[in-house]
Structure formats: structure tokens, C-alpha cells
């Protein structure tokens, strides 16, 4: 058993992980969980916020079990949740390729990929249910890619040496979400789920210490409305848009999670951010988001820059021996498929050395020439046609002829609300699923594992674990006429008024861009203590300026995109502060958190297992009369009984 850390466990963070042999924990836990009698289920009302993979799968499974469900989302339809944009694939330990995969290997790869900062029990459960996810999705009609003979096809993804990724062209997220959405809509049709599209949750209602409802703004009418329930599930996605530019859809935000945080849910590992290595570089100051080029491209594309600094020749003029295929050189066993954090930092490094390419010198080549010569244009087109087309549209360049240019961009947030093994936050009755929680990916997520986690949480974990809450606690009847609902609604209204009444000079978007740049600069791919301290000062100044100088035209009592954005930006400011504090406190480098002070002589991340082998969960300390916002840290030590903590090497 290796528990390297002497960190003291916080009593607030009972992980509820079962004990015993790793592979038996989940079934043992399921057996020990309470059950809700089928006749009683319809008496329980569950509020599911978010309809991405996590939310749609959770809402449909719970409805299927007989619970009464209400589902909320920001978009005009649940089918448009950000999960729809996932391209590359979903992992599962099916071992259909007979190439040595197993539940244990997926478990190990995920733990190692996460740089030993995730819970063993959770990750093993994820690997176990991964196989059921594929079965479930196929049953729902997800048209995964198949071989000629009719069996399911697989590809490989970063951080793995086996082919375990299932995919549907470059639209895997779309097809998975449409599958989950169809199941959800079936329940809507049957009256088991009530759907609230264009509804944004703006606060959580906690009564007698238990989450009992939410307050939303109806985005079409501007009305502030309350919804009461017996449990609240946040499936509201990640917060990468704190950086303004990211691969996330424009509406992705932290608001629901942040409001819950301010009502008592601890926020863990806020600084763990994934920067994806293969994105289309920024083209100008108008840039509104960044576009990912799926990591699957690295199966056939080779990443390189010129060996010489300041080489301005066009790529075809640079001879083979003057190219540096730096991933293949530095990480021979994983090469172009090295994990994301490592590949991203390597790209930054060569660009910082002055060897970047393109007009801005801030990109690297992703070259398909060799693959096209080997397999032919048609084969490459069949594998990546839609991605190549997307690239061409955005850049005006043809990747069949000239190498793509790529650069890392913010992509995913491993941090999120702290949850126990049941996916319950530190607020009883408040569960957090999907990217919004912190649970399974440690300090770095492997490609194709987010879709897996979202569906695992929704289809195969929450249907069991929610019963512990519903059957285990005495939940009295509560309606929205309860005083607490009125009080929270009032708070939501006042906040909107405050934003609207600032009547300043700058748009929320301009503030958001400024915050994003600051975060990218000081809390992005590489961080250091001085930079983080400086950022903390600037974020606070900018946040204060925001509340004085923001300008929101239009009416709050109707559709108002600027007002919606303004509320989200206000929360991003507070989150940004916490992210920097978290990054500053973690005096080590691990996964997506690279502190420049803590690196090996050859520039790799240097963990400090003796002092930092824990999940750090922050408790919000309400604003004091002086107006100062504060947080206190709680620690959940990570115990490794089944894997040996090792330096994470992909060489």
C-alpha cells in the first residue's frame, strides 16, 4: 500500500469509497446501497440541470426507473448541449481488438494519465462500467464505425497503447448525445420528464442543510422562477470559458456550479485545466472561440517544426533532415500520441524557442504527407474528411496539400465540485455529474474519457447512488412557497438589478476577454508563483471595475443575451480568483498544472507526492463586512493501494 502523504484528512470530505479488493468494490457498494421501492419512486422529484451526456443519460435513466424528473438547459433544445461537439471518440475496455486491453489496463492508464491525482475506487468503477456504455449506446441506435464484417471498429487515442476508442466518424459526441437525447425525449413524451429549455439555473436552494430546489431565469421571458425537488443533479459541464478563448461552446459556463459552491458545495482542484495540443491557431483579435482538431488526427499526422530558429521557408522547402519531429524524438514510445498535457507543453516549448511556424510563429505543423503517401488520399479522406474540411473553411488552407498548423488551446477542466463516491457534493442532496465534478481524471484527462465519464455517471452510477439519499434521509414535503425560495429568488433579482444598474461603459464581452487573457497568461499552460500573485491582484481589480463599469442594454424582462453573458462573466471572475489560489497553493507540477518552479532538468513535470498527494477542496467563506472574499482549504488524501506511484513517463 502506498500512501505517501502525511496530509491530514478533512472531516468534511468523507469519500465513502468502499474498502476491499478494488475490482469488487463497486458491486459490494451497490449491494450495500439502499433501494427505493418502485411504488415510491414517482413520489420523488429530481431536478436535473443540464442535458449534455451526463444530464440526458441521468434524466432518462431516473425517469425510466420511475422517478419524476424535471430537466433544464440553456439552449433551445437539449440536443444542443456542448457534448454534441465532441469529435474523436469514447473509450471502453472492451478488448474487441484482442490487443491486451482490460478493465485493469484502462483503470491504470487513467490513473497514470491523471498523474496519480484521482481516486482509485472511482477510476476503477469508471473502467468497469465503460463496457456497458458501449452496449447501451449501440442499443439506442448510435451508429458507431464498424469494420466491413460488421464488428465495431476502434482507434487509438493519446496516452494509450491499445485501440479502445469507439467512434462515429468525427462526430462521436453528436451521436452519443443524440442517443441519450432520444432516450430523454421518449421520457418527455411519456410525461415522466418535464423539460425546461432556455432556462438558466441562477441559484441553489438549500433548506435544513439539504438541496431542495433551484431558481432559474426563463431566458425567453426573463421571469425568475423556482423549482422544488427532493434532489438536485448538476450536470452543467466545464468552466474552460473562464479563459474566454477555448474549444468550449460559447454558452459553457460555471454559474450553476459556482452558485452551488457559494451555498456550501466545496470546489476541488480548480487549477487543473487541460490544454489541448491540436487546435487551430488564433487568427485575429476578433477571435470568439477556438476550434479543436480532433486528437485522432495524431494517429496519422506527424507533428514537427523546423530545427532552425526563425526558419521562414514554406514547409515543402524544408528537407527531412532539417525538421524536428519533436514528439517522436522526445517520447519515442508514445510519439505523436503522447498525452495532451505533455504534447501541449512540448509545442509551447518549441514556439518559445523561436521555432514556431506561421505568420504569428505560434503554431506547429501537423503533417499528413507520410500518411497520404502510405494509405492514399481517399483513405485519409475517409478517416478525417470532415475535420480537414473544417480546417480548410476556417483557415483557407488545404491540409491535403500543406501541413495543418496547430497550437494548444484550453479544452477541458478536470477540477469541479467535489463529490464523494456516490457523486454527492458536500451539500446533501446535491449531486454533480460529468465535467462539472472533479472526480475521475485527476490532474489530466485522457482523450475520449470525458464522454465515457459523463455516460458512466448518468447511466450507471447515479441510478443506484441517488437512492442512498432518497431512501436514507427523511425528506419532508417542500414547495416553492417556502420562505427560503422567496429569499433566494429575491437575491437573484437583486443581482440582476445590480448588473443592469451599473450603467457603465464596457460590454461584458470586453471584460471577459480581458480576464481570459490574464488567465491564459498567468494561469495557463505554465504558471509560476509571481505570475499567480500578480494575477490575483489584477483579477480583483478587474472584478471591482466590472461591477462599476459594465453596460447591459435592453430589458431584463425578455430575451437578453448580454444580460445572460454578464451573469456568467461575474461568476468567472470569482472562479478565476480561486483557480489562481489553487494553482499558487499547489507547489508541484502534475498533469495539466505545470508550475515552472517544479520541473525536472529536462523540463518534465515534477510531482511532490509527499506533500501534495491529495484532492484540494475549497470551502467558500462568505464575504465579510470588509467585502473580502475568502476560501479555506480541505484535503482529501489520495491513497494508492493498487498502483505504485511512479514518475509519469511516456519515453
Amino acid at each position: 500500500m502506498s500512501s505517501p502523504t502525511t496530509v491530514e484528512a478533512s472531516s468534511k470530505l468523507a469519500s465513502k469509497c468502499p474498502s476491499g479488493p478494488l475490482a469488487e468494490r463497486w458491486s459490494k457498494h451497490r449491494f450495500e446501497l439502499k433501494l427505493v421501492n418502485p411504488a415510491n419512486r414517482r413520489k420523488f422529484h429530481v431536478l436535473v440541470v443540464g442535458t449534455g451526456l451526463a444530464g440526458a443519460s441521468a434524466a432518462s435513466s431516473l425517469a425510466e426507473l420511475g422517478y419524476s424528473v424535471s430537466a433544464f438547459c440553456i439552449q433551445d433544445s437539449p440536443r444542443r448541449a456542448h457534448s454534441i461537439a465532441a469529435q474523436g471518440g469514447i473509450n471502453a475496455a472492451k478488448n474487441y481488438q484482442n490487443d491486451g486491453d482490460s478493465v485493469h489496463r484502462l483503470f491504470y492508464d487513467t490513473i497514470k494519465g491523471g498523474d496519480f491525482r484521482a481516486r482509485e475506487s472511482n477510476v476503477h468503477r469508471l473502467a468497469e462500467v465503460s463496457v456497458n456504455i458501449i452496449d447501451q449506446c449501440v442499443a439506442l441506435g448510435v451508429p458507431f464505425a464498424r469494420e466491413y464484417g460488421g464488428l465495431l471498429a476502434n482507434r487509438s487515442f493519446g496516452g494509450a497503447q491499445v485501440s479502445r476508442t469507439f467512434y462515429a466518424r468525427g462526430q462521436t459526441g453528436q451521436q452519443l448525445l443524440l442517443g441519450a437525447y432520444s432516450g430523454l425525449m421518449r421520457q418527455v413524451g411519456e410525461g415522466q420528464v418535464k423539460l425546461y429549455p432556455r432556462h438558466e439555473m441562477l441559484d441553489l436552494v438549500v433548506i435544513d442543510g439539504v438541496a431542495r430546489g433551484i431558481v432559474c431565469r426563463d431566458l425567453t421571458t426573463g421571469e425568475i422562477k423556482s423549482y422544488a425537488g427532493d434532489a438536485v443533479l448538476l450536470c452543467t459541464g466545464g468552466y474552460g470559458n473562464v479563459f474566454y478563448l477555448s474549444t468550449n461552446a460559447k454558452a459553457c459556463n460555471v454559474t450553476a456550479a459556482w452558485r452551488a459552491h457559494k451555498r456550501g458545495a466545496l470546489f476541488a482542484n480548480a487549477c487543473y485545466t487541460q490544454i489541448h495540443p491540436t487546435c487551430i491557431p488564433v487568427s485575429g483579435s476578433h477571435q470568439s472561440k477556438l476550434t479543436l482538431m480532433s486528437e485522432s488526427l495524431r494517429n496519422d499526422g506527424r507533428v514537427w517544426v523546423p530545427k532552425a530558429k526563425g526558419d521562414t521557408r514554406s514547409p515543402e522547402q524544408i528537407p527531412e533532415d532539417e525538421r524536428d519531429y519533436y514528439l517522436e524524438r522526445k517520447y519515442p514510445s508514445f510519439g505523436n500520441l503522447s498525452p495532451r498535457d505533455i504534447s501541449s507543453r512540448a509545442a509551447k516549448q518549441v514556439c518559445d524557442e523561436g521555432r514556431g511556424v506561421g505568420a504569428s510563429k505560434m503554431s506547429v505543423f501537423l503533417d499528413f504527407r507520410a500518411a497520404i503517401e502510405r494509405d492514399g488520399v481517399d483513405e485519409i479522406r475517409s478517416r478525417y474528411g470532415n475535420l480537414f474540411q473544417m480546417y480548410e473553411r476556417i483557415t483557407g488552407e488545404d491540409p491535403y496539400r500543406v501541413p495543418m498548423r496547430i497550437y494548444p488551446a484550453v479544452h477541458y477542466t478536470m477540477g469541479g465540485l467535489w463529490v464523494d463516491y456516490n457523486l454527492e457534493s458536500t451539500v446533501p442532496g446535491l449531486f454533480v455529474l460529468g465535467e462539472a465534478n472533479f472526480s475521475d481524471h485527476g490532474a489530466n484527462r485522457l482523450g475520449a474519457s470525458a464522454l465515457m465519464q459523463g455516460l458512466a455517471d448518468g447511466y450507471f452510477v447515479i441510478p443506484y447512488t441517488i437512492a442512498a439519499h432518497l431512501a436514507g434521509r427523511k425528506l419532508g414535503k417542500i414547495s416553492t412557497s417556502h420562505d427560503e425560495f422567496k429569499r433566494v429568488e429575491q437575491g437573484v433579482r437583486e443581482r440582476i438589478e445590480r448588473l443592469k444598474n451599473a450603467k457603465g461603459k464596457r460590454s461584458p464581452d470586453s471584460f471577459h476577454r480581458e480576464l481570459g487573457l490574464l488567465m491564459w497568461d498567468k494561469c495557463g499552460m505554465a504558471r509560476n508563483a509571481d505570475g499567480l500573485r500578480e494575477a490575483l491582484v489584477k483579477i480583483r481589480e478587474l472584478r471591482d471595475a466590472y461591477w462599476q463599469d459594465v453596460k447591459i442594454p435592453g430589458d431584463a424582462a425578455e430575451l437578453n443575451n448580454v444580460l445572460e453573458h454578464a451573469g456568467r462573466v461575474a461568476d468567472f471572475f470569482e472562479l478565476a480568483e480561486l483557480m489562481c489560489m489553487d494553482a499558487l497553493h499547489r507547489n508541484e507540477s502534475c498533469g495539466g498544472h505545470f508550475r515552472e518552479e517544479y520541473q525536472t532538468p529536462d523540463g518534465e513535470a515534477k510531482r511532490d507526492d509527499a506533500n501534495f498527494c491529495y484532492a484540494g477542496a475549497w470551502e467558500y467563506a462568505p464575504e465579510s463586512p470588509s467585502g473580502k472574499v475568502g476560501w479555506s482549504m480541505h484535503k482529501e488524501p489520495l491513497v494508492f493501494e493498487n498502483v505504485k506511484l511512479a514518475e509519469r513517463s511516456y519515453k
Partner: protein
Amino acid sequence: MSSSHDTHASHAAAPTHEKKHLALTLHVWRQRAATSEGKFVTYKLDDVSPDMSFLEMLDVLNERLIANGEEPIAFDHDCREGICGACSLTINGQPHGFERETTTCQIHMRRFEDGQTIYIEPFRANAFPVVKDLVVDRGAFDRIIAAGGFITARAGSAPDANALPIAGDVAESAMDAAACIGCGACVASCKNASAMLFVSAKVSHLALLPQGQAERSRRVLAMVEQMDKEGFGNCTNESECEAACPKGISVANIARLNREYLRALACGD
């Protein structure tokens, strides 16, 4: 040690100065609410970078409107990658504009000419009422799916995914139909505002797969019934929908839908 300023620079701006910026005249549909009268309002932009996307061009305009204390133009968008189906503009009379198999959010300004005039309207159809400006309500599509656009499969009940092989070409055909993003351009492009392409894509996707057989008849009947209830028009084989579809969904699906429908009626299901 820190070199993060360089990355900062890359985030901020890359040179676009060599390329000539465009001057454009925009006529944009403005409508306060579903029940209000709408009208075109004219805006002039004189420095549109050809590297901007169409929606980034509207972002720039909106920032200016906000600076002037005017209300910005409301439009739906989210992924800005052509996959979520949120964006829904009619550009110079064509849903998603003139580029084939391209959503509004994927159009880049390098496709426009200096001095050009652009009309921007919402997707128009009775079944898609305007919510505000360029935003419409496409809830009818969700209701059609709720009526039958699914395969019933309870979590936990599924057999092993490889237990039932599906020939590669069948899976590919199902995927062709499943690629629909539910944007509604097919409806907006059709003179009858028919939803046949949308409905047929889902019916085809599920009818092609062995998993979809059990509910095959019920599905098509229920979806068509709901489609009619929502007030979509009839299909008169104009094929405008296929031309407007950003995902290249083929009208062959409509033929399949008709066959499926007759088959279901014949089965008396």
C-alpha cells in the same frame, strides 16, 4: 523563466494586416418579440477582416451597438463549429447562406466581397415562430422526436455491442442519416415549410439499424402525426431542403420515409 507573454501574444492577435478588410452594408431583421412587428434595419461596417467568421462579424457589430447604448442583435449560436445546430440565419435569402454544406457559424468573411450588401433574417416558417430578432423557436422538432424518434433501451438491459454485427455499409448509411443537426434549414428553405427531410433522416437512421426494427412502424406513424400537428407543410419534391442542408442529408431519405409510412400503414400497426 516565464515565457508566457509569448503565448499571450498568440492569444491576442496574429497578423491579418496583409489582407484587405471589407466594407459591408447589412440589412438585419429586428423584431422585439414574437408578437411585435419586425423590420430590416441597416448597419454599415467598414473594417471587416476576411479571417472573421460570419458570427464574429455580428459580434463586432453588436459590440458597437452596445457601445452606442443600442440593443444588440439577438441570434442563436453555441458551438460555432457546425455541429450543435443552434445558428439559424437566412443570409441573402438562403438558410445558412450560399455555401454548400456549411452552417452559418462556419461561413468566413473571405467569401464576401468588398462593398457587398447582405440581408440577414431568421429562419422563417410558421412552425418556427420568431422569439426575438433572429432567434426562432424550434421546439416543434423536439416534440417530433418525443413522439417516436427513439429506440427504447433501458440502461442495463443491452446485450453485448458486438453480439449483433451490422455490416459496415449499413452502419455508414445509418450514420449518413444520423448526421442531421436539427437546425431547421430544411424547413426554412422549403416553400411549403415542410419538415420531411428532418423527420425522414431520423426515421431512416433508426429503420436501417437492426436495433430499430421493433418500433419501426409505430415510430414512423407517430412522428408523421406529430409533424402534421405542428403545422409543417407538405413535401412537393422541390429538393430545396437537400440543397440547404448543412450536413448534406439526401432527399433519398424522404423517399424512404414515404415507403416506411406506407409499410407501417399496410402492417396496420
